[in-house]
């Protein structure tokens, strides 16, 4: 069995994992914490398919996060810079507000999807392949496409129905 290049996996997967988690916990710092936690567990377990394993654990962590407030300190400053926060504040208060509104609209649109649709959509958006998604969610590969098609349509519809936010208009 080939050895896992953890450095490479970590560098390439961490951003995807944060992206995936962020749409679940809606807190960038928390998403980063959870992504780190998932990686720590992966290091301990050395799973055969680490990328899929990481997303599975991340999904579970996010689910737990919703259930219970985990009391723990932040053990590590994950990021040297918070680009999202920086870029938002650089645009001034109006840009901040705009960003928050858009953020809320996306969140609302996502929350209108069924759990499965949302999960498939977010996994795909985080770079998981159809096969990986199918395995993680115990569905046929063909069903991933069907679910994605439905999820995307509903997301766009839900987002546009929020009045001011029309992705077609930008």
């Amino acid at each position, binding site marked *: 069995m080939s050895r896992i290049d953890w450095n490479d996996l970590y560098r390439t997967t961490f951003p995807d994992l944060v992206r995936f988690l962020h749409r679940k916990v809606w807190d960038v710092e928390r998403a980063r914490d959870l992504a780190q936690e998932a990686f720590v567990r992966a290091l301990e377990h050395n799973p055969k398919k680490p990328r899929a394993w990481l997303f599975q654990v991340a999904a579970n962590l996010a689910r737990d996060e919703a259930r*219970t407030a985990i009391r723990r300190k932040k053990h590590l400053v994950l*990021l040297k810079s918070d680009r*999202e926060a920086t870029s938002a504040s650089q645009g001034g208060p109006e840009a901040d507000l705009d960003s928050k509104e858009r953020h809320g609209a*996306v969140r609302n649109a996502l929350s209108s999807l069924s759990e499965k649709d949302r999960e498939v959509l977010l996994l795909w958006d985080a770079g998981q392949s159809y096969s990986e998604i199918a395995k993680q969610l*115990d569905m046929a*590969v*063909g069903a991933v496409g069907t679910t994605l*098609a439905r999820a995307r349509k509903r997301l766009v519809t839900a987002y546009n129905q929020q009045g001011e936010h029309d992705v077609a208009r930008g």
Partner: protein
Amino acid sequence: MSHVDDGALHAYLDGALEEYPIAEARRVREHLDVCAECSERLESARRVRSDAHAILSMAAPIADAPSIEELKSYAERTRKIPPRVPVHGRRLSWAASVILAIGVGWVMRPDDTGFVSESVILAPIAITESGNPMVETDGLNERNLGGVYGPSVLADASSQGQEHSVIDPAREEGEVEIPRSGVTDVERERSRLVVRAESGNAVELINIETPMDLIPDIEPLLVAHRRIVPSRGIAQWDPLETLVELEVEAKSEGLMDRPRSVSGPTLVSQFSLGRGSVRVVPEDDGRFKDEPLQSVPGFEVTRTENVGGGRKFIGTITTQRLEGDYSIQVILLEPGVGLDVLPSLGTSLNEVRVKAETGWVILRGPRSGQELETLLMRLFPG
């Protein structure tokens, strides 16, 4: 040639057709080359896909990873397992932030009466408090009311003041088997599935606390009818995993009696219970090995359930899917059971049926009656 469905269109746009069966991927590509209607739908799907991507990108953080050395350092600092807590040392409480994990499986064997009895395999149990792995048990009937955690698993041990061997925080994964004769009862108590089993000198009361709506299939399988039971259980558990995944592959005792019965176990259910991983898979079922799979050739059984909600076994419904395409339902009723027990037929479905010696066989699906008849013939040739 039938049109390409939306799922395949999106798979095409996502570059995921390679992950489809080769023949299906080829069919999609060839069809898109010649079908103007599907080409238009493809463009529409492309716009939806692009819009969805744009929406998601509006809430996409950019995250750099800390160095792997920092991560390893973090792992070393945060992975200290506290000493084990004596059995009666503490009480479980709502405030304790306790999460339990257990794996449970059932093993089937025919008993003297020809019915099936179960055996339970228990995985270790992990309890974490405030994020730290530790173990607590408080004796018989002590209960962690896991409602605040949603689906969770509860284990009660009547080990008479001794630590229970099943509860072993040191084991990160593994399985413990309870003799097949050990299961004394399996029943549903309100929102819980309760399995009672004996293990050595101890009596296990294993209460799987989980909303039943999460496990729609297990309840009739293991609780109401006890006519469909898994043939073997393997529990795999990992204390650092968050959820228990329980896959139940089961056989229907009723179907086994049929000349063309289920051969292999059918994946009946997979659901989350708590932490860890539970998988119930078939044992070496040479008994049924040679029997044909009770699915229409080309279709995959995706779901099996019993007809009706009562305790009496009157038949089964299997949902079978033609990969990437539509699903059908095959309903087999026990001899003497009338058609009045059937669930209502959806508006988009057609139905064909035949009465055999073994009872009614009904096939439903979103196809014409003639097509369904053909499928029925494929299911029961001759």
